[in-house]
């Protein structure tokens, strides 16, 4: 009789790699080692084929044509919405608005909800971990409404200073917008705790899941998130795919940011009535092929299993932390792999990140160098830039080895 194990399913990385045609590319004569998935992920064959198949066989505008192609396109588009809603744990596909990605989604909340409901004296709470896309839209809304911005500070280990929550949260807080996983430090934030704290003071909780959604199982209902923004291109999907999950009453209460075709119910000379959510937030021709591709990406992620993906990335991040530290690099962010994702920021000896990225590229290794659109994080740690290696389903410990070996070349040049 078989013994029952309760172990996380294991990712067969060799099989996964075979699904990504770009990984067979060579760069500067070396096999590509792609360590920049936090910027954008590579795409599996099934996503490429789905987009191609859409254009080759089903292309039409969604929700418009009373013809076979129009019906097929609509069915595929709405099918993708249902798949993505299930992936996020949403109670209904209608709770997901399609957008170009996280930036558009957060701007939509900031403009459509924030500008409508925020007043002078209200406070918007952010964290110092945030990507610029979860800061700048709120600065713009604060300037327009007279609301004030506040921040949850960062501790030296790259985690949020939760002891400050009592100080920065109050009944003046109307929005608490927070990252689920930092793109710059890899920090995974305690979302349930943060969202509960927001609700305790009557604020809505807006989650930037650009980094979390590709790497970690999400259940928006269990989290009780009010809004959650995500980007398809970081989770194996096409660029300009993604969306905004919202509680239906909030999606309904907020104003549409764009007016135009398909979002209306009736148009008169002086006014218009809008369609119900999510359609009132989807003006104009949508990214039909891209969102259909994202549906395929999400199905692919589901077939691998988000727990298996998380376990794989936790292991590779732990290995990278150890190897980088041993090689003499200073690593930023949490050192405990259980509270961090696969984005590992570091500074290697006297080599500036720009120089390092250039030298690694000669070895076929793609990393990101710069401020990662997180200048508050950079300033907090007293640097203008870091080097960042970020890992995903297709990366291996052997690729970490290639990275570390390439560091030696940089060290030679700058010795």
């Amino acid at each position, binding site marked *: 009789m078989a013994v029952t194990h309760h172990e996380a399913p294991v990712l067969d990385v060799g099989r996964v790699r075979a699904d990504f045609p770009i990984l067979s590319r060579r760069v500067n004569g070396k096999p590509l080692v792609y360590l920049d998935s936090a910027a954008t992920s590579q795409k599996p064959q099934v996503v490429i084929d789905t987009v191609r198949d859409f254009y080759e066989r089903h292309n039409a505008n969604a929700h418009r044509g009373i013809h076979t192609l129009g019906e097929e396109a609509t069915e595929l588009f709405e099918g993708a919405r249902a798949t993505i809603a299930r992936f996020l744990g949403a109670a209904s596909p209608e709770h997901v608005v399609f957008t170009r990605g996280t930036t558009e989604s957060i701007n939509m909340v900031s403009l459509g909800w924030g500008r409508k409901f925020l007043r002078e004296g209200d406070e918007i709470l952010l964290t110092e971990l945030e990507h610029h896309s979860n800061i700048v839209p709120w600065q713009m809304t604060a300037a327009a409404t007279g609301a004030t911005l506040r921040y949850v500070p960062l501790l030296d280990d790259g985690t949020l200073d939760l002891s400050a929550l009592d100080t920065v949260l109050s009944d003046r807080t109307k929005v608490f917008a927070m990252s689920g996983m930092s793109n710059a430090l890899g920090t995974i934030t305690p979302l349930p705790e943060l969202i509960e704290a927001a609700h305790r003071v009557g604020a809505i909780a807006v989650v930037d899941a650009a980094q979390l959604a590709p790497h970690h199982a999400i259940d928006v209902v269990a989290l009780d998130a009010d809004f959650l923004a995500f980007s398809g291109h970081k989770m194996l999907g096409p660029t300009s795919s993604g969306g905004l999950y919202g509680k239906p009453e909030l999606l309904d209460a907020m104003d549409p940011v764009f007016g135009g075709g398909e979002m209306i119910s009736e148009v008169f000379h002086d006014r218009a009535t809008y369609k119900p959510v999510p359609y009132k937030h989807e003006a104009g021709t949508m990214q039909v092929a891209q969102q259909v591709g994202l549906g395929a990406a999400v199905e692919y992620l589901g077939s691998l299993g988000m727990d298996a993906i998380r376990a794989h990335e936790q292991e590779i991040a732990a290995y990278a932390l150890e190897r980088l530290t041993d090689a003499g690099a200073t690593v930023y962010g949490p050192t405990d792999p259980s509270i961090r994702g696969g984005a590992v920021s570091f500074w290697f000896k006297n080599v500036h*990140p*720009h*120089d390092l990225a*250039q*030298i690694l590229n000669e070895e076929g290794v793609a990393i990101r160098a*710069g401020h990662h659109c997180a*200048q508050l994080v950079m300033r907090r740690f007293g640097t*203008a*830039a870091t080097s960042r290696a970020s890992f995903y389903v297709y990366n291996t410990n052997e690729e970490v080895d290639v990275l570390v070996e390439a560091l030696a070349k940089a060290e030679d040049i*700058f010795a």
Partner: protein
Amino acid sequence: MALDDIYKEVILDHYKSPRNKRELGDGAISCTKNNPLCGDEITVFASVDDGTIREVTFQGAGCSISQSSASMMTEAVAGKPVDDALGMAAEFRGMMAGDVEPTEEHFGDLVALKGVVKYPIRIKCAVLAWDVLQEALAGDGEASKAAAH
């Protein structure tokens, strides 16, 4: 190896031992700019007397290309009339665009940066110091002094 084209010894030397890397005191004009792509930042200080750059220095942090370019620039334009320095900035940009073939007698160490042309994304790094110099010289001394602080 292709990297030899960009990481030449003279560039690394200016990066590790930058020349004229300090602030200039009262009376100097200055200007600060950063490269939004990477956060590299350079401040250029210059004392100009009777249309001639008497002294030029810089402060900043960034990659080897941006910092070595700044260091070489301070050596290249010191003692030159402002118009000549501005002309040199234009020529340097021309070199980075691949339009001007630089000579060592005219450009000195700066010739070493020629290899950057092959790496389009790094051209901004090389040009940053020159942008700052140009703005510092173009601006009214008092105004740019205030802007730097």
